[in-house]
């Protein structure tokens, strides 16, 4: 018998739906676990209600992690946006050099972040690393890159920037190439200068593209794990313990499952909130860009 037409779409999405449920189940299970004091040491867990969350929010460690996470995300996404747009603008001029280099733009992006972090870890090693070797002639030989709190955070951000700047640049370049030509021709006829054209035309019309990239980057860096795990493991001290690293340490290292998941649930809520805000502003900016180009 042929399926009823109204059922057809559901039949098609059924496998995906099942898979989705298969992923939602552990998520739901995780939420459920957070209501218990489930850990390796406590295989017969008791219901503790919202106690885990209360502990999370009253711990200094949580607020430290939250602060570090925000610093990391703002820093990484910020630098990547500025640098990425700059690289895109430079490549958009499509000089000979630019055309050659554009072919290898994606290289860092295709390297696993954890591998990238390993690479930089080897390069930033204080005594034998190549970075300090190259800096030595400038009188800056002994920088303790990942061994000071500030240095460790900046180094992690640098690796993130190294990996993900091409992401912003690629999307911004696609945006630049799809901008309508007529407003620029009109501006050129009117004798508008470079800066004016950039501020009044390029930037507003480019924003929607850049913002897609920024949303992706900001939300991804809120849940950074790989880079920090390989580069600093959260150290020195607690200086780079971002939320996912904290959750990892609690849940896997110390096997306090319930408590660790509580951290990720809080992080999940933060990411979700950030996404809602950013996506709304994307809509607003897209409308504005349409006005400029229209």
């Amino acid at each position, binding site marked *: 018998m042929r399926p009823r037409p109204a059922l057809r779409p559901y039949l098609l999405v059924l496998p995906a739906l099942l898979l989705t449920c298969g992923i939602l189940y552990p998520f739901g299970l995780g939420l459920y676990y957070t209501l218990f004091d489930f850990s390796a040491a406590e295989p017969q867990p008791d219901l503790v209600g919202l106690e885990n969350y209360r502990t999370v929010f009253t711990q200094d460690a949580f607020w430290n992690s939250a602060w570090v996470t925000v610093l990391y995300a703002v820093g990484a996404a910020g630098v990547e946006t500025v640098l990425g747009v700059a690289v895109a603008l430079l490549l958009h001029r499509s000089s000979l050099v630019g055309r050659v280099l554009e072919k290898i733009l994606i290289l860092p992006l295709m390297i696993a972040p954890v591998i990238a972090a390993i690479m930089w870890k080897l390069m930033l090693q204080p005594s034998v690393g190549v970075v300090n070797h190259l800096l030595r002639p400038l009188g800056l030989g002994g920088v303790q890159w990942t061994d000071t709190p500030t240095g460790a955070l900046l180094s992690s951000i640098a690796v993130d920037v190294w990996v993900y700047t091409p992401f912003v640049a690629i999307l911004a370049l696609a945006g630049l190439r799809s901008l309508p030509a007529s407003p620029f021709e009109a501006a050129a006829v009117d004798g508008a200068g470079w800066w004016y054209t950039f501020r009044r035309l390029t930037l507003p019309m480019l924003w929607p593209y850049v913002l897609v990239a920024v949303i992706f980057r900001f939300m991804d860096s809120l849940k950074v794990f790989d880079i920090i795990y390989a580069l600093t493991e959260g150290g020195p001290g607690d200086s780079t313990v971002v939320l996912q690293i904290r959750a990892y340490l609690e849940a896997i290292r110390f096997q306090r499952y319930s408590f660790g998941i509580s951290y*990720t649930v809080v992080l999940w809520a933060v990411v979700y909130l950030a996404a809602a805000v950013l996506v709304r502003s994307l809509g607003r900016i897209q409308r504005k860009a349409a006005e400029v180009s229209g």
Partner: protein
Amino acid sequence: MKGRQAAGVRARGRQAAGVRARGRLGGWLADAALILYFVFALFPVAWMLILSLKPADQLFSTYFSFTPTLESYRTVLGDREGIPFTRFFGNSLVVSVGAVALSLVVGLPAAYASARLRFKGSENLMFTLLSFRFAPELTVIVPLFVLYQKLGLFDTYVGMVWVLQLITLPLVVWIMRSYFADLTPELEQAALLDGYTRTQAFFKVALPLVKPGVAAVSLLAFIFAWNNFVFPLILTSNEAQTVTVGALSFLGGDRPKYNLTAAAALVSVVPPLLLALTIQRYLVRGLSFGAVKS
């Protein structure tokens, strides 16, 4: 009269030359800035190459001049030092291909349905899938860690392929939906009136026309699956462990083996890099989940 005209032409000529000179200087500066960025982007890879070619005894005593040797690659690919790197490599291949295959089988019909058929809950499903992309991985992994141990899925291919859907399925569904949406439904309607069933119309008309999209999304999903770190870190221990975790194991032990780490890192980035170069054209759409088309 003629003289004045000629003077005017000369003046314009000088002006143009001035603009060009300024333009040329700007061009050089722009190219210089680009080159600077690409040195930053490429140096780490070059340095890994250098490190990987160094003999062990010159590892810390030399920087740029040394006697190159392939010994590190022999060690890494020969599974010496007690690290079964080739098996990790094979594991990466198996779980990544498996994850992409499952995502395609499950995701293509879902993408097609949500692009073509208006049905209740379609947007909800799509956004649930999208939210996977931005969910902190540990929220799902920690419960899975507990669950997998009970179900015997810990450290297995099946377990890895399943959890990788978190990454590959949203990618496949979202990008393929945008490809299907670009296709006019009248082509399949024509096929229906030619006497084909809906299934035949999908396989004979819709699918061949989105083949480039399928190829691009498969490769991109493969790359993301391959580069993933946190899933195998937590959900495998040895049997199903992948290269990203494997590469890190060369850093362990009492004596840091930088040359081996560098060789392992480079070997592990070869597959994604090669694939990335083949899908350059489709990358923008893939990276932005179909939000930006180039």
